[in-house]
């Protein structure tokens, strides 16, 4: 009789522990995801200023500006991990072509405003990278928990599911401004 009660008590305590650890892992991934979106937003906020700066030197490159503005709008509207990652990839491509245009205008590249924006962009890229690392780490921990016995039983019963990693092809779009030699 007592043995049965003890066993049931131990099992109940274990379930509570496992449930709590799952909740913790889940909350951590959500926090990490909101960190990523904050950093992505920060980067998108730099873009209008960048576009205007480049326009001042290369006003006839309309196609590129349109592409960047469009990609930015798409990235702003993206929700969910997969969609965000896709929009990011599009946006990175557009940003790359904008910087390719800038390459052709030495005056633009030497201007303080442009260099400052470049430095800012590199920094946010590093921050997105860091936030992505933390998010993927949190997702990895959660996914391991949802797969390993006995946690997987409880995760299955209470509806904890695996989450997706945030994968972006190539994050380092912008390079550090190089000192111009005169």
């Amino acid at each position: 009789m007592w043995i049965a009660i003890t066993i049931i008590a131990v099992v109940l305590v274990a379930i509570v522990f496992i449930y709590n650890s799952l909740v913790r892992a889940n909350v951590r991934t959500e926090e990490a995801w909101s960190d990523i979106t904050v950093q992505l937003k920060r980067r998108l906020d730099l873009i209008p200023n960048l576009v205007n700066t480049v326009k001042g030197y290369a006003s006839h490159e309309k196609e590129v500006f349109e592409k960047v503005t469009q990609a930015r709008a798409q990235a702003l509207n993206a929700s969910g991990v997969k969609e965000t990652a896709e929009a990011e990839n599009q946006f990175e491509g557009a940003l790359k072509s904008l910087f390719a245009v800038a390459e052709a205008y030495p005056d633009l590249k030497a201007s303080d405003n442009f260099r400052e924006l470049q430095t800012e962009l590199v920094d946010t890229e590093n921050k997105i990278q860091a936030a992505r690392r933390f998010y993927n780490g949190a997702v990895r921990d959660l996914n391991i928990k949802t797969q390993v016995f006995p946690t997987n039983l409880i995760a299955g019963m209470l509806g904890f599911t695996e989450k997706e990693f945030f994968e972006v092809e190539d994050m380092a779009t912008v390079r550090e401004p190089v000192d111009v030699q005169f």
Partner: protein
Amino acid sequence: MYSAVRKNKLKTVLIIFAFVLLMSALGWVISVTLDTPGFFIPMLIFAITYAGISYFASAKMAIAMTGAKPVTAQEAPRLYKIVENLSISAGMPMPKIYIVNDPAPNAFATGRDPEHGVVAATTGILDILDDSELEGVMAHELSHVQNYDIRVTSIVIALVTIIAFVSDWLLRIGMFGGLGDRDSRAGGVMLLVSIVAAIIAPLIAMMLQLAVSRKREFLADASGALMTRYPEGLASALQKIESSARPMRKANNATAHLFLANPFGREKRGQFVRKLFSTHPPTADRVAQLNQMGTEL
């Protein structure tokens, strides 16, 4: 990398366990020598108070002793950016950043939990390291904060204090022969035991304290490598620091265990006694562990 972290955490637990054993042994010697079991209680209360005070004041004390000055993002943009990005990837709050004006390359961290984290770097270390090396060093320091190392070391230091007090007290009893039956041979043997215990215990305690501190260095190396995913950065930083080692202006035994590299400058390697009484593992051993992790990635 994960296994290195696990192993180091386990070893810290084992060392603290050894401490408790040592305390119990001393307690046993005392209770056999005298018939007063109530001796440990005031001792424990004292130790807990001491640990509590040192725990809450540790950051302030360390900053005051090393002469570190707080810096803003504008004053030290490079260091600030590196630390900010690392805190994002570790998912911890941004620590306060301090700079010590000292040409000796070194860095330290303090703060009782991630909310009160402090990382400091000397001007010397900022001069000689490139970005990825500095990132490795700062990841090591942030790991100290993240792993609650200040908490572990203050517990350990409190234990050392108790043991030192107890043995001091035992010695005094031995000297003045405060024993019940001075004529019996058992009393004489006990007296000898208590004197030996009184002399050896603080030494063992000190070695244990240093062992904990060395283990925590290895642990911070491993968790820092996890943070940056680039163990080679810290490895090459450690080698650079080693080759340009010079004692710090304000090197001090009380804060030595906080630093990344030994603040007293270089130590000769391979000397057994030196190894026992050093707060830091030899650089070569640390670099070896980091390179090992680099190959596992």
